[in-house]
């Protein structure tokens, strides 16, 4: 716990700044008005526009409507409160810190995966910096041997953050790099090894198999590893995010979600749709392009921000 000291203030102001001018806030529409069918429709619309998905949005709207019919609520503010509670309930109190190896059992391995351009490499820089700042020793493994200059990108980060990278041949077997990196992490007795992988679409079965292989190779050397498998999901992702989560979870036993790019105007509601399907915690959010732009996921704040202007 306490891996990332939350600077919620920064997030709030970051989100505020970015969201100005993206339409009238649902808060404003609902505030101070008696509840009506129209307001409920507006609420549903706000949910859909946050990428929560139409099915879930309709269900949630109906729940609120039922509450209204039962006389539990009768104005817009109460409806919004009720909705926020229901949304936050998707993310009950759970351990959202990184899973660490048992003390004395060797390095903790964090495997990072996701579709192309989701923000994996940048998110790794963020996690790396936080851990380093906590005094942990970190090693990076450059398992993206495919994309042009992917290794160089990770090397730039390692240089800036003062950690080392294990790399292989461009075009080589990423599982071989994972093997070397794990060996190196054990030999050098580092606290944490973070493996960067190539972006891959969840529909490409051979690439998903490759990811499973990376996982197996690591596990062979450290039976409890990878301790954490983070799936990076871009907050602008639409309903396809559900397919992404399902397929990645199936092939690599994802342990948590890193929701990147939440500093834009997208609301990231797709993690709600994902949660409908998979019992996966969202662990971190990315709110910018520097290694400092990371926050622990905080359901209350997240839901709050979902309906802000």
């Amino acid at each position, binding site marked *: 716990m306490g891996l990332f000291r939350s600077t919620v203030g920064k997030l709030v102001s970051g989100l505020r700044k*970015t969201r100005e001018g993206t339409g009238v806030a649902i808060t404003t529409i609902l505030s101070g008005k008696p509840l009506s069918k129209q307001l409920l429709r507006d609420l549903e619309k706000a949910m859909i526009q946050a990428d929560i998905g139409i099915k879930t949005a309709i269900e949630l709207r109906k729940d609120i409507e039922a509450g209204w019919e039962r006389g539990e609520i009768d104005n817009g503010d109460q409806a919004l409160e009720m909705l926020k509670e229901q949304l936050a309930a998707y993310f009950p109190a759970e351990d959202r810190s990184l899973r660490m190896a048992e003390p004395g059992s060797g390095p903790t391995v964090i495997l990072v995966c996701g579709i*192309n*351009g989701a923000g994996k490499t940048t998110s790794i820089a963020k996690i790396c910096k936080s851990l380093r700042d906590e005094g942990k020793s970190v090693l990076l493994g450059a398992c993206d041997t495919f994309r*042009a200059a992917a290794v*160089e990108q990770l090397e730039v980060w390692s240089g800036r953050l003062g950690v080392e990278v294990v790399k292989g041949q461009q075009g080589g077997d990423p599982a071989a790099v994972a093997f070397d990196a794990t060996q190196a992490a054990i030999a050098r007795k580092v606290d944490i090894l973070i493996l960067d992988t190539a972006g891959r679409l969840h529909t490409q079965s051979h690439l998903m198999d490759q990811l499973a292989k990376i996982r197996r190779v690591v596990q062979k050397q450290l039976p409890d590893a990878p301790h954490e498998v983070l799936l990076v999901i*871009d907050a602008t992702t639409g*309903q396809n*995010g559900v*397919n992404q989560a399902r397929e990645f979870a199936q092939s690599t036993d994802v342990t948590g979600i890193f929701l990147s790019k939440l500093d834009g105007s997208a609301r990231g509601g797709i993690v709600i749709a994902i949660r409908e399907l998979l019992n996966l915690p969202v662990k971190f959010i990315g709110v910018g392009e520097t290694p400092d732009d990371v926050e622990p996921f905080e359901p209350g704040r997240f839901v709050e921000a979902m309906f802000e202007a």
Partner: protein
Amino acid sequence: MLGNLSEKFENALRHLSGKSEISENNVREAMDDVRTALLEADVHYEVADSFCEQVLEQATGEKVLKAVEPGQQMIKIVNDELIRLLGGDEALAAANEQGDGYVPGQASAGSELLFVSPGPTVIMMCGLQGSGKTTTCGKLAGHFKKRGKKVMLCAADLQRPAAVTQLQVLADQVDREVEGPAGAGVSFYGEPEKCAEYGKAVGVAVEVCKNALKQAKQDGVDVLILDTAGRLHINDDLMGELRRVNAALSPHNILLVIDAMTGQDAVNSAKAFNDQLELDGVVLTKFDSDTRGGAALTVRQVTGKPIKYIGTGEHMDAIEPFHPARIAGRILGMGDIVSLVEKAQEQVSEEEAAALQEKMAQGKMTMDDFLSQLKKLRKMGSMKSILGMMPGIGKALKDLPIEEKQIDQTEAIIQSMTRAERNDVDLLDNSRRRRIAKGAGQDAKAVSQLVKGFEMVSVMGQQMSGMGMLGRMKSMAGMGSAEMAAMAQGAAQPGRLKGSSKQSQKNKRKFKQRRGKRR
């Protein structure tokens, strides 16, 4: 989810068909399902609403209400309107004229960019982080080199770590690997020493772009492509940088690069980029995923600018002109059939396909054929998701065992069959099934499921007028959009699928009752 969507749409249509006369209410109800389909495909809320309004206006006129087959008439209106919105009137005319408007190797109307002579023609790429700008720069360079152009790629992203190297690697690769006529080529311009950490190089790109243009003129380059850094549309500093590049170089084409998996937010980013830069066109990347791609409609609607290309992979040749009819079908869940056929063709040779078609037509497909087909499907990547896009059949094929593990199981089961059984499934009575299950180390249910799947494909093969699945798909690829839509309807109702359609109608009734009660 994918299957669901086509089901939805089919339901809406089934609703309409089979009734001799329909009312405005029927149409409205069906449009509700279309709207849901659009939202599930990530079309923006308001865009979906206005689309449905527009269609309703057309559909509630004489033409539909009095039509002999109102369901089909209605699908045609929906489909046509979608094509028109995605690609303009020419696209619609093309789609109705030449199948789906797709002529292999030829760009569809309005798809190519504006070129000036004397050059260089300047193209500026812009978009959110990670959308695929740099990759698309490489792809476009190859595309133009093939067509005889001398291309220069300029690294105007001085901020993302190794972005300059990334573009340089791609430029070298494309110049090496893509063949072009004499004089064509791809060169690179970059000033890596100007790179800086995030936020510290804002504005520097303007200088670099100016220098690149100077160099391009000197070198007699035809096309100069500027790869700018990814940025949020709400970041004033970085948007300002783009405006300054725009002012300094007046690019002939400004292309917005958007991820096809983008959700509702596409409306905000597309609008902001268009407002500040006056886009000339859009490139939608990562269309090789199983996204419905509703963002295409959103972006087109909010910017009014044409979608010029789609990206369909990570490799440098994975770029295609945009074909509105293909994407329209995909958004509606009617299947991107052309893509399916192309994938299938990669896996199966002409002779193989012909032989199998012959067998299928005669109802002589064997378990061995079936297994080999499953294995091929498996190789086509996530066939399930693609098959899910197929009109009508998507739903039926959903349960085919084509995952790796399932294929192993299936193989074990088939290997436990005798030769006679493999060639004639009718032999498989319960006692045989039990024996086979035991031999394969699985339960009898697994065997029954396999037989069911086999029979389904077998029947489908025959139904497809003796052409076999591949042949049928090929012929579908050449179909007009209206015919395709009609197919969607027809395929949804063969005898074998009746059970499920009844079921869904029942569900629908239940749903309505519930809805009624609440009101």
